[in-house]
């Protein structure tokens, strides 16, 4: 019986791995998407808008099933067409990280876009006046200041992302939800194991909240808040 609890704890490590991987993917996609939407170039803006609209219109589970089952077949076709050989396999971990990252990239795009718009334009203009190019301005001036405005939305997205990782169990990744389900069916004690998994999630979200709260305090140094 304790063997099951240990394996669920191992699965928890996998959950953390999937969520951190997906976070990295979503942050990269979010920055790219926000930059695209704010660039003003018609093609980029349309592309980014289609991306965010589609993602917010389709359930995560359906997207994950599409990427996992359909994606492998599609990728294999592509590989065969291009003359490569051998089964290309998208295994559950990669499918999960890519799908969740892709989905939350859309939400991060909106968060980062709002945050970048909140940074006073004068900051960027001063950077240009100094002769900084657009990329350098973006990474040395805009992004550090944007972090403060982005943190509330980012925290929200991160918390929702953690919970979305439970869905990866439905495509066969042996994360803690999958292992809890297996253990509960094998021992006929679902309440015990699901409660355990739920508690682990609670710990994870609480720790995240605490870390992000500290981060937000750190990035708000030098600003003032007034009580209404």
């Amino acid at each position, binding site marked *: *019986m*304790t*063997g*099951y609890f*240990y*394996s669920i704890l*191992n699965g928890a*490590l*996998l959950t*953390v*791995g999937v969520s*951190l991987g997906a976070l990295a993917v979503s942050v990269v996609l979010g920055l790219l998407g926000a930059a695209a939407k704010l660039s003003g170039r018609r093609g980029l803006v349309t592309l980014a808008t289609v991306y965010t609209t589609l993602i917010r219109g389709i359930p995560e589970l359906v997207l994950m099933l599409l990427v996992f*089952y359909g994606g*492998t*077949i599609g990728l*294999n076709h592509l*590989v065969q067409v291009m003359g*490569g*050989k*051998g*089964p*290309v*396999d*998208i*295994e559950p*971990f*990669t499918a999960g990280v890519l799908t969740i990252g892709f989905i939350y990239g859309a939400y991060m795009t909106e968060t980062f876009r709002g945050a970048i718009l909140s940074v006073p334009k004068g900051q960027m203009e001063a950077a240009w006046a100094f002769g900084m190019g657009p990329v350098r301005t973006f990474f040395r001036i805009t992004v550090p200041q944007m972090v403060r405005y982005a943190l509330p939305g980012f925290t929200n997205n991160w918390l929702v992302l953690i919970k979305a990782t439970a869905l990866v169990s439905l495509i*066969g*990744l*042996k994360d803690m939800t999958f*292992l809890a389900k*297996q*253990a*509960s*069916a*094998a021992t*006929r004690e*679902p309440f015990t194991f699901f409660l355990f998994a739920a508690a682990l999630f609670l710990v994870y979200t609480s720790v995240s909240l605490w870390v992000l709260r500290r*981060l937000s305090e*750190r990035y708000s140094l030098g600003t003032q808040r007034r009580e209404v």
Partner: protein
Amino acid sequence: MQKLLWTMTLVAGAALVGCGKKEEAAPAAPAAAAPAEAAMPELKVAIDASYEPFTYKTPDGKPTGFDVDIAEALCAEIKRKCVYVEQVWDSMIPGLLAQKYDVIISSMSITEERLQQVDFSDKYYNTPSRIVVKADTAFTDLASLKGKNIGVLKGSTQEKFAMGELKAVGVNVVPYEAQDQVYLDIKSGRLDGTVADSVEVTGGFLKKPEGQGYGFVGPVLNEPKYFGVGVGVAMRKGEDQLKQQINDAIKAIRSNGTYDSVSKKYFDFDVYGG
């Protein structure tokens, strides 16, 4: 300074997790094509580990059971290393066609319908199915089960039978993702019974505490129309060399006693069937 510490902590954390998940994360690159080690090439075997005593897991998560042991014996014969991939039952064949694994060794019956999509080896066992409900249920014929809730495994031959014969007479057939979830709901009272492989339901349910008071009713179910001609190893069409190897391996383990010793671990009767 603090920022550096934060970044290093996060990176260290990610690295730790990365090392922890190394066993799970293989790169999404062409896999089994070229054997890396001079040792045996891999054979990816799909199993649905919710089917005691044929395919299930020990508490530490190791696959075990009759199917798994037969798979190990076959792999030893054809000199390949068995690597197990867990898969939900109703996506077994789609996963095989999508090349997620090479064979399915998980109590998959050889039926006409499945032969249209995949190829099978010779059978390696054959057991009939039965209907299981509370032992004191009055049973005359299939229609006397009218109104009862019967759980079946989605995508199984038993589901085909239940949908074909039982649903027509008014039984409420509920498909489940895994057979052990059926037992969970029988135990809790949501289901009145199931249609399942007779050996599997004995080992996975009737012999356990929650199976007390339940028993077989009705005839022995083994019409080839629904249940096929036995259980075999499934593989993609066109893999004739692999099929030949596996068939030879099955003959070999049956004649050299390996099959019998594996079978004795789990059953005290002849599971190979007629």
